[in-house]
């Protein structure tokens, strides 16, 4: 990428073709109705075969993602009778019932695991985001004292990981086995996320922060009153990355949490839904399905949906910020 300057477009993902169809292609006044108004004038419209092929391919891609989610959600609100009739996952809605959700949410293992996961995700995301915003701002002014060595401390962790065994030995030496902090602290800072924020902060017009400094604001005040409000999009994306990371974390819990009363939702999902079905036990503590409250396909699918729903809830609010910039800025540093 030698001379490519990424235009810092405040637009969303949907807009980039505004760049491909310049003013020559699309005069604002004379819109063409017959051909796609978004198509540049120099580009030939696809033939019927190409168009059909494209539609079929895109439909397949969308269905490949959407269909499994649809049938799993439908099964979770179906009755056991419908499940038996369809011989597994339900594809055609029959009688709908929320019984599965009532069962898993009325106390017991799944409820507790969901609460554990919510707690870890909330505390972890808050901690990680605050620490990362602070670090990113602290590193956002090249030439500041200690800037280079401090940045290096961060960067090295991207290229060399310590490995699972020493990390486990450390967590265990710190007495964090079976502590929720073991699921938060070791993964609390991601250099990648700090770099996303840092590159965003560095893109803020220095004239703005300089003006605040001239008015007597210190670095803390500049960060909290000027930079943070201007960076909501980037902070939201980073918070999502952290939040999803904590919510989805499964292996750390498998390593550090032996007490299955403290299991987060992903581990419960693994034991009851994944292993309870056809996968035999492959490691840490497997629980007899009979003693748990979880039986039947609708209930299993309800646990699965429970693990997906928080992501589905947060995703739409953050998704529009996945501009090319956030990701590109991050990869490029």
């Amino acid at each position: 990428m030698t001379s490519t300057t990424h235009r810092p477009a405040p637009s969303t993902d949907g807009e980039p073709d505004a760049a491909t169809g310049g003013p020559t292609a699309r005069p604002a006044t004379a819109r063409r109705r017959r051909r796609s108004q978004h198509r540049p004038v120099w580009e030939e419209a696809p033939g019927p075969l190409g168009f059909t092929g494209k539609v079929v391919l895109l439909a397949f891609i969308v269905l490949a993602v959407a269909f499994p989610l649809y049938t799993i959600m439908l099964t979770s609100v179906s009755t056991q009778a419908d499940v038996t009739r369809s011989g597994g996952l339900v594809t055609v809605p029959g009688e709908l019932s929320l019984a599965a959700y009532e069962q898993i949410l009325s106390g017991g293992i799944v409820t507790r695991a969901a609460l554990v996961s919510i707690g870890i995700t909330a505390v972890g995301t808050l901690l990680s985001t605050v620490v990362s915003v602070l670090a990113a701002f602290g590193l956002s002014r090249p030439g500041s004292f200690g800037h280079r060595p401090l940045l290096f401390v961060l960067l090295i962790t991207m290229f060399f990981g310590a490995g699972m065994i020493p990390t486990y030995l450390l967590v265990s030496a710190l007495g964090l086995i079976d502590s929720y902090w073991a699921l938060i602290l070791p993964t609390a800072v991601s250099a990648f996320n700090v770099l996303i924020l840092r590159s965003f902060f560095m893109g803020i017009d220095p004239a703005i922060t300089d003006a605040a400094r001239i008015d007597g604001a210190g670095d803390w005040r500049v960060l909290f009153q000027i930079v943070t409000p201007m960076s909501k999009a980037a902070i939201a994306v980073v918070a999502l990355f952290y939040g999803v990371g904590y919510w989805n974390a499964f292996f750390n819990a498998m390593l550090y949490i032996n007490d299955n009363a403290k299991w987060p939702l992903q581990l419960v999902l693994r034991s009851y839904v994944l292993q309870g079905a056809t996968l035999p036990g492959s490691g840490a503590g497997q629980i007899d399905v009979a003693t748990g409250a979880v039986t039947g396909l609708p209930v299993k699918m309800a646990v699965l949906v429970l693990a997906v729903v928080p992501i589905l809830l947060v995703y739409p609010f953050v998704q529009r910020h996945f501009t090319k910039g956030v990701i590109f800025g991050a990869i490029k540093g």
Partner: protein
Amino acid sequence: MTHGSSQDVRGRGDADDPALATVAPTAASAAAGTAAPALATAGDAVVVDEGSGRAGAVQPRRKVSWRARLARDRSLILMTMPAVLLLAVFAYIPIAGNVVAWQDYSPFLGIADSQWVGWYNFQRLFVNDAFWHAVGNTLLITAFQLVFFFPVPIVMALLLNSVMTPRVRTTIQSIVYLPHFFSWVIVVTVFQQLFGGAGFVAQRLADLGYDGFDLMTDPDTFLVLITMQSVWKDAGWGMIIFLAALSTVDPALYEAAVVDGANRWRRIWHVTLPALRPVIILLLILRLGDALTVGFEQLILQRGAVGVDASEVLDTFVYYQGVINGDWSFAAAAGLLKGVVSLVLVLGANKLAHLFGEAGVYKRA
């Protein structure tokens, strides 16, 4: 990729000033920062970007004593401390903790009192068949996914980029990005429900009189299965960076190509793909550096179902040898070896990219 005449081509919809961007790439986003701070920064792949950017705007570049600089920047340093402290404890102490690889570590004795054994654990590693089997599996999976996973996001990005209606495109993007945010437990469970022995496909096949379909426990097709899972989870998300690169292609290049009589495919070959080349190389480097890391969570979830033969990779080997079997030093040696080789790989790949005139992952500005 030049911005020479981009001013008159881009025109409407571009808030920033391309001319200025060409002159000072690193300041480009700053220029557009007033209304909505830009998310993108410099065009060049700069991670360590000392001396670029805005330092001069705040403090004129003259010699300031380090004491004065320390006093001036103490808040900034203080801000980085929580992160530095967390990394020091949870990233750097474990790096030092790799010394157990040269010990006969026992949890009861601790690092201080365990016996030092020199290179014994590494010697054991080199004659251990299971270790080399894990290395082989790891490289096999990497190679397979390089061929069957890596190009998928590129093709998808090209396909999606040809969709003209913004609303259709954003909708499709929102849907295909989504699985990236699901955990591996969810993804594997979804696949189990679809392709497992009691799953959707098996049921439909059974209706047609074909019994015994179970992709989840078949070691022979395991490579295909995990690649399908990776594609389902991450191909959509992998698209994002290619779409970003595509959106920076100067439309004048396409217009010129059309004038020269290039058809759709030749435009892809001569304009689009060259524009994607830096990104493709960047991602290839990153993938090569990660050659020894293949979906650890994904594999450990399925190790029991398909068996060790097909699914044991370096990371699962380390986990089972260390945490499960308690052979801590042996496992640490395997993990350390992996870490060092990975580091060499990523640095080497980056060097290679520089030799070919690409920007690579990092460079000093």
